């Protein structure tokens, strides 16, 4: 080897260098999807330790599956199903009681625009079934009896229903809470950079390789297009819109975001996006602002501390809270 001409040795070194440079860079992003809580959940983690990240993701998905068992209205043994079936009162887990209290607080703050007691109304419309329908006005009135921010009396873990026929539906808050818990599990696993996206309910943990995460906001009338991008770190983003779960009859769109006062789908917005510290709050506020409409919805978001948002009115007009300036790019 050492008796050989220098250029041969140099050539050897060059080859070794090239082979090393051509090695694919270790991909530090680990991304996994699963179908949990009736939606597609994607967890993205940035980590140099793939095995560790995979374990963290396993724990996060397991946590979401656990919460689905607790909150789903489709699982007859869930606490929420049992509470709906209960004659008057029931002792629930402290976790369920705590989520109900958060929902009640947002229901009160939004003058009842967010409502966790619309289970009977949603059953009536069957929006999420194969045969959705427009119910009779009398049936709608009956389904709204006893609902509202004070429909549940929560005392510690004891939950008392004002009316025995009340059915609970945590559709506007439970998925968000599950995303919050999944992120907490990732954090406890030592992960510092991650994002959990459950069908558009997003929570960010840290940044994206020292840059903010870019969150695209769906155009409510053009699938596959976005209306804006938000550049965020460590925040939660939720969009509620009339374009995903709906049916049309005689040219009218009937969607899943109901106005508790009328029992009809709320008509004044196409979509509302809320940015908050946690997804459960953002989820409930997005529904509330959607139901309130663009003007009152904007006021609600402006008046709520550490909350921002953007709204697309029924006529396509776009509004945003002042605090989004600098974080928001319209398209």
């Amino acid at each position, binding site marked *: 080897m050492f008796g050989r001409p220098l250029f*041969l040795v140099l050539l050897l070194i060059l080859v070794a260098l090239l082979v090393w440079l*051509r090695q694919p860079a270790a991909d530090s992003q680990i991304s996994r999807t699963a179908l949990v809580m009736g939606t597609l959940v*994607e967890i993205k983690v940035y980590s140099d330790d793939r095995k560790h990240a995979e374990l963290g993701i396993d724990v996060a998905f397991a946590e979401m599956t656990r919460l689905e068992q607790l909150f789903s209205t489709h699982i007859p043994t869930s606490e929420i199903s049992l509470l709906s079936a209960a004659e008057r009162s029931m002792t629930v887990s402290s976790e369920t009681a705590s989520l109900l209290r958060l929902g009640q607080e947002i229901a009160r703050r939004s003058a009842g625009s967010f409502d966790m007691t619309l289970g009977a109304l949603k059953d009536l419309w069957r929006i999420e079934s194969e045969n959705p329908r427009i119910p009779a006005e009398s049936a709608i009135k009956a389904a709204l009896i006893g609902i509202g921010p004070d429909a549940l009396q929560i005392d510690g873990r004891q939950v008392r229903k004002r009316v025995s026929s009340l059915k609970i539906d945590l559709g506007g808050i439970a998925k968000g809470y599950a995303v919050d818990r999944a992120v907490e599990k990732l954090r406890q696993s030592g992960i510092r950079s991650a994002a959990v996206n459950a069908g558009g309910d997003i929570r960010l943990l840290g940044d994206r390789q020292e840059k903010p995460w870019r*969150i695209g906001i769906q155009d409510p009338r053009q*699938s596959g297009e976005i209306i804006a991008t938000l550049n965020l770190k460590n925040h939660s983003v939720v969009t509620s819109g009339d374009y995903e779960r709906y049916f049309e009859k005689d040219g009218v769109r009937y969607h899943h975001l109901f106005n508790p006062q009328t029992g009809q789908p709320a008509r004044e917005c196409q979509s509302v996006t809320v940015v908050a510290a946690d997804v459960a709050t953002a989820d409930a506020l997005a529904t509330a602002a959607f139901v309130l409409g663009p003007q009152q919805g904007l006021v609600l978001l402006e008046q709520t501390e550490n909350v921002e948002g953007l709204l697309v009115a029924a006529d396509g007009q776009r509004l945003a809270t002042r605090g989004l300036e600098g974080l928001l790019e319209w398209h």
Partner: protein
Amino acid sequence: MALADLWKRLTPFDRYLVLVLVLLVGASFLLPFSRRSGAEVIVDVQDRTVFTAPLDQARRFDIEGPLGMTQVEIDNGAVRMLSSPCPQKICIGLGKARRTGDLLACVPNRIVVRIEGDNEEAEYDLLSR
């Protein structure tokens, strides 16, 4: 020529070695190109990959999920669900996916369609909808 002199000084084994090394250097340049094979559509059913196809080749195919057959179409560099046995057809309403990282899903039929590989980079990391 200095190079010619050097070449003469090499033993047959050294010349053979030089030839192999030069070929290796050439092959190393081809490596990244072989990886850049374009974007792929990947279809998972119940967390198991059951189908992959290039995004740039038009085709229609059926994927069987627990509820039945979901028809998927790749056309013009985009993928979409064409028909589905699910009750609400939300998956069809999701429209087309064309960028790396884009996802489509039929939750009731447990089907996830994703795009991976070199392709048009999305303007965003996550989509809120």
